[in-house]
């Protein structure tokens, strides 16, 4: 066990965990932010997508010892009152079915739009390729990203 200070959603959190603990489980079990989901544990499904200094990463494979001073943003911290353009577009398009993968989807989408405010279809395909949705909400996800892009411009 070792002590780490993490910056999550703009707040400092001190946690006492094994250094190899993936940040997914630190967020969920230690900090109590369960919006970030476990799906595969090997960075293949995207359910655990969070932002590390604004970049979309898979929290299930990044050990807490590797985070350092980097800023972690989770779905709970994407915006203070769920008014991020991506979150609003997700409501407008009624994207969710079971909803389990959607936090990861939204975090990937938000990172894409912060780096590329006007993504082409191809850009969206590439950015979202790491996020699986078994319910099959992909068309709505794509439409919602386009709406969010429009509302951000």
């Amino acid at each position, binding site marked *: 066990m070792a002590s780490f200070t993490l910056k999550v959603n703009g707040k400092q959190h001190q946690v006492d965990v094994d250094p190899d*603990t993936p940040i997914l489980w630190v967020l969920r079990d230690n900090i109590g932010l369960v919006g970030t*989901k476990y*799906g595969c544990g090997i960075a293949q499904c995207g359910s655990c997508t969070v932002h590390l200094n604004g970049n979309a990463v898979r929290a299930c494979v990044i050990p807490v010892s590797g985070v350092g001073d980097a800023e972690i943003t989770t779905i*709970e911290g994407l915006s203070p009152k769920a008014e991020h353009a991506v979150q609003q577009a997700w409501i407008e398009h009624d994207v*969710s*079915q079971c*909803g389990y993968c959607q936090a990861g989807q939204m975090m990937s989408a938000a990172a894409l739009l912060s780096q590329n405010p006007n993504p082409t279809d191809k850009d969206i395909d590439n950015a979202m*390729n790491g996020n699986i949705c078994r319910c099959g909400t992909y*068309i709505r996800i*794509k439409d919602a990203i386009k709406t969010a892009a429009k509302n951000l411009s």
Partner: protein
Amino acid sequence: MVLGFNWLVSCKPAAENVVEVPKEWFNINAFVKIGDTGLVTIMSPNPEIGQNVKTAMPMVVAEELDVDWQNVVVEQAPLDTDLYTRQVAGGSQSIRRGWQGLRMAGATGRRMLLEAAAKQWQVPIEELTTDKGVIYHKSSGKSVNYGEIANSAAQIEVPENIELKDPKDFKIIGKPTKNVDGPKIIKGEPLFGLDIQREGMLISTIIHPPAFGMKIKSFDASEALKVNGVKDVFRVDTAPEEKEWSDINAFPELIAIVADNTWQAMKGKEAVKVEWETVTPGESSEDHENALEKAILSSADEPARKDGDPETAFKNAAKVIEKIYSAPFLPHNTMEPMNFFAHVTADKAELVGPIQTPESMRKSISSLLKMPLDKITVDMTRMGGGFGRRLYGNFGLEAAAISKKMNAPIKLVYSRADDMTQGTYRPAYKITYRAALDENNNLTAFHVRGAGIHGGPVFANRFPAGTVDNYLAENINVESNISTGAWRAPRSNFVAGAEQSFLDEVAEAAGKDPIEMRLALFERAIQNPIGDNNDYDPERYAGVLKLVKEKAGWGKEMPGVSRGVAAYYCHNSYVAQVIDVIEENGKPKIKKVWCAADCGIVINPEGAKNQIEGGIIDGIGHAMYSAVTFTDGKADQENFDRYRLIRLREAPMEIETFFVDNGIDPTGLGEPSLPPVMGALANALYKATSKRLYSQPFAQKDIVMG
């Protein structure tokens, strides 16, 4: 920090003109609570797996209660067999089976409110009207909000003989309505079983045998117990004495690893050394292939259905078309892996988590723990997917057994590999179709023989039964030690694609348009059906085909577009689809899916469309990319690195859905759009590539998509 998890947590809809949160609530009945401000709580009785019944079922209650939807708060009901019936998510039946009861619950509530107002104002009840949660007495100009009269209404005796609304007066039913949990989902609020956190809760992982046919011989936990946070490692038997239908489980005996947190429990699991023993021989995919092949080359002891004289008709045929189709085992792969919370003490058991069959789970747990039913509660969380996997609650039994042993609240967490290799798969199937055509290219005989692991896939009384004079249907069971179970649209999820691909070949061989050929068969079933137990309505079947034909502009020249069509009936609903495939960088790409559906009255067009789209994408994905194969009883795919699920770039670019508007009582939509799309896809890809597809997953060897 530990977060409290309240599955009953309410959420006020985010809209303007929403009434205040009440100080006091009045129970009108099991479905309806009305607050003193007029805010209404409606209980959603059935498990929510993403099929959106948590929005649709309360909409039906709200309609008859006649309240403003924006003043409705929805709560998930607990398992309560006294208050609710059929609290199951399965078979696309929640809406169909719930329809009448939900309407009655709303209408009874409204009637009680009216009676209370009539009594208070001393006026005849017939003079009262309601609108959006307010009762009006026109002649006196009086009005009262439901919230103000709810206390009196709650004292009224529950009335019988209630009149229901005329569907033409529906205001909520038929209106596109957003997912009631949407606002929570976008904030990442705790909604799912895996999100449960409780004071003092431990986390358990499990080890099940690595291959079907194996069981635990011995294990050594000494290294695991040295892992930080690991509390205990033990063998646990989770088989209930009395089995419910839902107790399908190839691995009732497990090793449990209990730790303070999830990562420690996962690390502890890696450190356990287990010796396994073989009970029955491990099977490989080649064995399944051979066994299924052998089965369809034999014949069933008894035909599932036989009309006319198929043997003679085939002998006299001018042309016989015969094809074989196959599909692999499929894990469900809900995005939320199996998990459950249990707190078992000496005198009671509390279970919370994702379960499609809470009532069966409670019975099984009662048998396992030897504890009376009334000491056991099972509460349902929102589920990160179901697709049939969560009909089989082995994980709940495991959680209960582990909690009992630890004498502590525990949350059982499966890894993806545990989940994908646990079994309860969609069975592997093989099916052979034969069609006889006479010299005028009329279909004179039809023969289907299907074989499947733990049961053949054929529905003997479905189309084309009833449309052909000479018909033979056979089902052959193939035994295996690999466990199988219901998977979104059981059996239909294979048969539809095979049958609809075959009919496309028959139409081609007959020189007929595939839609016209099907319509002619339905016409036969309408005018002069063969047999009297055909379990479909040929007019509704033909109706969806005609609708998709019209909407898609079937038959018109579309340069660069290859089209395929399919139609299927299952779960009491009818679906027809046309798929347009184009070429992109020399490879086929799905441009658009046109879908016509007849599920009777559409409660929530927004959710209904989402279900249709999801079923289409899910169906295309599994037909195209997904399979689990076996080597000596061990699954060759354990995670999403080797197991493919469809991804965003592979989804159709567009789906357009049309509903038949016929006012018939509603039927389900969680499953019916999936089965036919596998056929429409194969038929469109044939047009695009001149290659017929017989063996799923198509993309494994036969085709590369753009």
